[in-house]
């Protein structure tokens, strides 16, 4: 996985609450068996009309925001299903970070598995970014800071996930180093824990 250390970009504003994973990647695209090239399906039903023509009023179709690597979103971003396709589409499209006041739990987790930083800022900080959408934003993961205009905004992230992103680590590899612990646990597992 590509490490995430710092990122400098403007943000693409998606001014809607409760954006769910069914919108991020509509289900007709879940049938693929690979994990690449989901970017073209990102927000498909919002981006294109029924004939497949781009909808002029949707942000991703606005050239002004082209090439931006940060998505700016509202509360409860990524709600709904556990489909990781949502994270794959976001990263494949070219976003490396999502800033929002809050995220749905499973989606939040899925981001870290795919080199995306989901940064939770305070509602007024998010409002500030929405109101100044052409500001250059700098994200520093090590310092847990988002810097834009005259503001320095701090976000929380736990040490484990931070390390995975900073070093681009594969969490299975990390866990397999704990093999002893897992085997030990298996030996002392409760007798009523299910077997085969």
């Amino acid at each position, binding site marked *: 996985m590509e490490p995430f250390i710092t990122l400098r970009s403007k943000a693409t504003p998606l*001014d*809607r*609450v*409760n954006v*769910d994973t*069914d*919108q991020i990647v*509509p*289900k*007709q695209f*879940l*049938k*693929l*068996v*690979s*994990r690449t090239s989901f970017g073209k399906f990102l927000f498909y*039903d919002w981006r294109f009309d*029924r004939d497949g023509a781009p909808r002029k009023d949707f942000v991703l179709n606005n050239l002004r925001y082209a090439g931006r690597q940060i998505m700016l979103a*509202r*509360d*409860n971003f990524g*709600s*709904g*299903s*556990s*489909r*990781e*396709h949502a*994270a794959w589409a976001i990263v494949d499209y070219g976003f490396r970070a999502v800033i929002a006041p*809050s995220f*749905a*739990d*499973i989606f939040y*987790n*899925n981001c870290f*598995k*795919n080199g995306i930083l989901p940064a939770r800022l305070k509602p007024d900080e998010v409002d500030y970014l929405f109101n100044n959408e052409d500001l250059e934003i700098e994200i520093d993961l090590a310092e847990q800071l988002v810097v834009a205009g005259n503001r320095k905004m701090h976000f929380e992230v*736990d*040490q*484990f*996930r931070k390390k995975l992103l900073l070093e681009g680590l594969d*969490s*299975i590899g990390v*866990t*397999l180093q*704990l093999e002893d*612990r*897992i085997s030990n*646990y*298996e030996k002392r*597992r*409760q*007798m*009523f*824990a*299910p*077997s*085969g």
Partner: protein
Amino acid sequence: MFEKIWDNHIVYEEEDSPSLLYVDRHLVHEVTSPQAFDGLRMNGRPVRRTDLTFATMDHNVPTSDRSLPIVDQISSIQIQTLAQNCKEFGITLFDMQSPDQGIVHVIGPELGLTLPGTTIVCGDSHTSTHGAFGALALGIGTSEVEHVLATQTIWMDKPKTFAINIEGSRKNNHAVTAKDIILYVIRTIGTAGGTGTVLEYRGAAVSDLSMENRMTICNMSIEAGARAGMIAPDKTTFDFIKGRRYAPKDEQFEKAVEYWSGLRTDPNTKFDKFITFDVSTLAPQVTWGTNPGMVVDVTGAVPHPDEFAKGNENERKAALRALEYMMLVPGTQITDIKVDRVFIGSCTNSRLEDLVEASIVLKGRRVAPSVRAMVVPGSQQVKAAAEQLGLDKVFREAGFEWRESGCSMCLGMNPDILEPGECCASTSNRNFEGRQGSGGRTHLVSPVMAAAAAVEGHFVDVREWF
């Protein structure tokens, strides 16, 4: 209860980091697993505990005649891929021809794979269903599926606990159902109300419920944004589990019951959050918008965005958008909303009891000529049991289609979808834009409310029918 299960499953922990938890059961389906198996292959990793891993196919499967080939090539590839992966890695699979096939959250409990006190994961958010047995059941993403296949463990932040006390007794048990209770809960706490928490449903109105009803409630915990939902196991739970294929037997079962009985939350346990509901006057609930928190009583009307948003500008915008998408005008009586389609099915409401209840409404009645209605049993076992009771005849005679088991129109990955603009009374769990078909408009309701809407061609207060 949550704390006990959590502590029992810690493999490793460190400060300011997620904990590594052991997974007792891993359920796998065709949509969220192919990339995980690919990852294993690429890294030369085996599945650590094939004995704790079970697979089925549900999301894509057609619900028409199973002896015919699948028309949709891409679905067919996904289904074959799962079969090949299970074979290659040595995992038990209940495939399309199996008498045990069904929606993963219906067959887990049915086969006795779902047990109290265990940790259960599946690459599907409605894994929360299994919490009805007093299990910690979590939906996970595909990378985590791969992680569990390889290590039988999962990294997880310890969630906070949220007690949902449900008191009182419903006035009309047939007309006001578990579905109405959970819709009311989500209406009250909101679709993000449970974020970061595990909900524990407690109280007299919960103890009274059957296992199937408890599953309906826990199923939709995710719609309140929760990490999981749980109900403490009791005699109802043990009776349900007894004799199921993968459940402990005889003396082992007795011992297990003793252990499971000890899982109950101590009466003086402190929850991080709590809320109390009284369901004595609860009415059937209907969603009007495009998320499961946009709910009103069947006797009510579509709200005005200002009234719905209570001063929150973002919620107001969301409500406006929802009204536009749903083609609804504020003030419209719910009972004036016409339906074109009715869907009884999904992991929320496709178990035997759901079908029995809906059939009571339909006996001697006919589906309105303008409505197309279908029933999709949750599993082959549910389907067989319902046919034994003659329910297929009741549904067919009323004008319903009687289909093979699967997810079907809950998310429309198979050919069962809404046409743009069609309005559907659905017993599923998500009314998101386009969920049941691009442009389709979904109203979530209970099975009896769906059946009654099928008959009348619009929503009705089903309390008047019982």
